[in-house]
C-alpha cells in the first residue's frame, strides 16, 4: 500500500470513528450528547478546529446570552462581491427591509425574522435568519463561525451562490413557498448525509411570499393543524418548529414557485413532495375581491379558489431561428483542466462571439449556450451568461467546459439561445429563440 493509500485509510477510519461512535456509546446519554456535539463541529461548514479553547454554547447558553450577544464578523458572501448587472444583481437599498414578522425559537434566544431584498436585476428575495437588535444574522453555534457564540450579520447582498441559508429569489410577480425540515439553529440546511446532529438542535423552517391576496396559511404540527395570518402586502409567512421526529433529520427541503402573473393571483403549488410531516403547509387562504377562498385542505375557508389551467411545457422544437453569425475560436486549456475533464491534452475552451439581437435587462431572460455532439445527437452541456446584455452588443463568451479535438466533441455544435430563465419559463407565449449555431469543425485557432 502506498503512502497515499495508507493516509486515506487512516482518514477514513478516523471519520468512521467520528461518525459512528454515538451508536457504540448509546447506553450513556451523556456520552452520546458529547459525541454528537463533537461530530457536529467536525461536520459543519467553516469547521472549527478541535481545540480546548473552542466555546460551544448550548441552547440554554444562547438563550441566556440573547440580551448581550457580542457581534462577530459578517456572514461571508460565497459568490464573492456581487455586481449590479450579473447574477442576482445587488440590493436596491431603498427597497430592502426587515419585516416586522418575528417568530420565537423553541429554545429561546434571538427570534427569527425575514428580510425582503429587491435587486438591480429585478428580483425579490427573502432572507431568513435570527434577529438581534433589529438586524438579521446568524448565530455562532452548531459548528458555524467556530462556535464563537457571537451574532453575525447577514448582509442583504448575500443572495446568490449560497445553499447554506434560507434565501429564495423570485420575479416580482411570482409567489413561492419553501420548507426545510432539518435546518440548524441559524437556518442553514443540515446535510442529508453525515454525522447525525441531535434532533433538539434542529429546526423545521417553512417560509414564503404568497402575494397580496394571501391572508393566512394553515400548517401541520405534531398536535394538528394550525392557521396563522401572513404579513399584509407581500403575503410573507415564517414558521419555525422543533424537529419532533428523529427520522426527519435528513429530509431534504423543497421550494415551489408560482408562475409569473400580471393579475397578481398565481399561487405556487402546495405539494412540496415532503409528505404530511410536521410544519407542512396544508392550505393557503386568499381574499379575491369579495371571495374568501382556500387552496389545499384544512383551512378555515371552505370555498376552493378558482385555479387557472397550468401552463403547458414549452416545446423544444419549432423555435424561431435567427441564423445570426456565430464565430468560434479554440483557446488551449491547461493540462490540469484537461485531466480534470477526463480529456487528453491538448484540449480547448471555446471563445464564442455573436451579436445580441435582444437586450437582457433583468434575471427574467438570458442568453444560453447549448452544446450538442453529432455522434450522439444529444445535448452535452449548456451554460448561461447570467448577465445584462445590450441589444446589438457583440457578446464574447468563453465556454465553461473543455473540448477535445480528437474525441466525439470534435463534431460538436454550439447553439446560442435567447430564452426566459428558469424563473420565468412558465410564462405563456415565451419560447426560446435560436440566435446562432456553429460547429466546432469551423472554429479558428
Amino acid at each position, binding site marked *: *500500500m*502506498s*503512502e*497515499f*493509500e495508507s*493516509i*486515506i*485509510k487512516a*482518514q*477514513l*477510519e*478516523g*471519520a*468512521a*470513528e*467520528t*461518525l*459512528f*461512535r*454515538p*451508536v*457504540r*456509546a448509546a447506553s450513556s446519554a451523556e456520552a452520546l450528547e458529547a459525541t454528537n456535539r463533537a461530530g457536529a463541529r*467536525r*461536520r459543519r461548514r467553516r*469547521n472549527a478546529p478541535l481545540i480546548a479553547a473552542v466555546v460551544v454554547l448550548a441552547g440554554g447558553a444562547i438563550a441566556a446570552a440573547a440580551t448581550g450577544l457580542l457581534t462577530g464578523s459578517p456572514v461571508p458572501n460565497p459568490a464573492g462581491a456581487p455586481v449590479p448587472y450579473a447574477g442576482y444583481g445587488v440590493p436596491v437599498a431603498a427597497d430592502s427591509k426587515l419585516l416586522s414578522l418575528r417568530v420565537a425559537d423553541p429554545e429561546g434566544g434571538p427570534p427569527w425574522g425575514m428580510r425582503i431584498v429587491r435587486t438591480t436585476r429585478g428580483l425579490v428575495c427573502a432572507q431568513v435568519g435570527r434577529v438581534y437588535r433589529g438586524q438579521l444574522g446568524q448565530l455562532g453555534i452548531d459548528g458555524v463561525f467556530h462556535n464563537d457564540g457571537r451574532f453575525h450579520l447577514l448582509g442583504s447582498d448575500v443572495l446568490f451562490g449560497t445553499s447554506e441559508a434560507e434565501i429564495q429569489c423570485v420575479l416580482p410577480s411570482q409567489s413561492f413557498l419553501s420548507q426545510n425540515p432539518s435546518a440548524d439553529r441559524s437556518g442553514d440546511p443540515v*446535510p*442529508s*448525509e*453525515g*454525522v*447525525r446532529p441531535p434532533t433538539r438542535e434542529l429546526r423545521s423552517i417553512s417560509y414564503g411570499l404568497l402575494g397580496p391576496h394571501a391572508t393566512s396559511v394553515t400548517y401541520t404540527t405534531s398536535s394538528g393543524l394550525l392557521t396563522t395570518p401572513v404579513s399584509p402586502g407581500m403575503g410573507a409567512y415564517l414558521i419555525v418548529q422543533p424537529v419532533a421526529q428523529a427520522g426527519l433529520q*435528513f429530509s431534504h427541503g423543497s421550494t415551489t414557485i408560482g408562475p409569473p402573473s400580471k393579475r397578481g393571483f398565481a399561487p405556487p403549488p402546495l405539494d412540496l413532495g415532503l409528505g404530511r410531516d410536521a410544519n407542512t403547509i396544508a392550505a393557503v387562504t386568499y381574499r379575491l375581491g369579495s371571495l374568501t377562498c382556500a387552496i389545499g385542505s384544512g383551512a378555515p375557508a371552505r370555498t376552493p379558489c378558482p385555479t387557472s389551467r397550468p401552463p403547458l411545457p414549452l416545446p423544444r422544437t419549432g423555435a424561431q431561428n435567427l441564423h445570426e453569425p456565430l464565430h468560434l475560436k479554440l483557446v488551449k486549456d491547461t493540462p490540469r*483542466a484537461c*485531466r*480534470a*475533464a*477526463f480529456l487528453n491534452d491538448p484540449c480547448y475552451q471555446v471563445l464564442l462571439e455573436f451579436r445580441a439581437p435582444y437586450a437582457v435587462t433583468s434575471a427574467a431572460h438570458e442568453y444560453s449556450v447549448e452544446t450538442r455532439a453529432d455522434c450522439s445527437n444529444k445535448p452535452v452541456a449548456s451554460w448561461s451568461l447570467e448577465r445584462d446584455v445590450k441589444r446589438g452588443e457583440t457578446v464574447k463568451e468563453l465556454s*465553461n*467546459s*473543455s473540448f477535445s479535438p480528437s474525441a466525439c466533441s470534435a463534431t460538436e455544435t454550439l447553439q446560442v439561445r435567447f430564452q426566459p430563465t428558469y424563473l420565468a419559463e412558465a410564462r405563456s407565449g415565451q419560447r426560446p429563440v435560436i440566435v446562432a449555431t456553429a460547429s466546432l469543425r469551423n472554429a479558428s485557432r
Partner: protein
Amino acid sequence: MANDAGVSDGELVRRTLDGDSAAFGLLYERWHEFVLAFLLKRTRDPEVSMDLMAETFAGALLSIADGPPAIDGSAAPWLLTIARNAMVDSYRRGAVEHAARRRLALDPVAIDDRDIERVLELSAETDMLITLAAQLPAEQFEALRARVLDERDYGDIARQLDCSPAVVRKRVSRAIATLRRATEARA
C-alpha cells in the same frame, strides 16, 4: 478485530455502523485496489483515479451513515456504483468531485510520483481484477488474487488473512471452480 479475513463484506458494513472503525479500514483494504483499477481503466489518469478512489470510500462511509446498504456477498457492485457516480459528477463539474470528503472534513492528500507508479502497476491487472471480483465472493477473490496474481505462497497468504494455509487452499480451489463453472455456462 480477531479473525477478520473470513468476515463477509456485509458484516464489515454492519460492524462499521456499530462503531468499529477498523472494520471499514478492512473493507477499504479489501476493495480499494479494485476500485482504483476500475477508475484508472476509465479515466486513464492515475492522479484523477486516486482522488476519485478516496472520494468513493468517503461516499461509501456516508452511504452507511445514511442507511446501510444491503450487501449480499461482494461489496464490489455497491462500491462501483459510488465510484461511477463520483466519476460522472466530476465530469459534469469539470473537476474531481470532493463533496463526500468535504462533508467528512477530510484534508486533501498530496499524491507523489511513487503513488502514481504504484497505480500504474495496477493497470495491467485491471480487466482481470474486475472480471474476477464480479464473479467471486470477497474471501475467494482475495485468496485467488494473492496466490495467482501476486504469486505468494500459501503460508504467507494465510498469515495475512489470519487463517490456516489449508483454508487459503480451499478458497483458491473454490474460486477456480466458480470461474470454471462460469466459463462453462457462457460456452
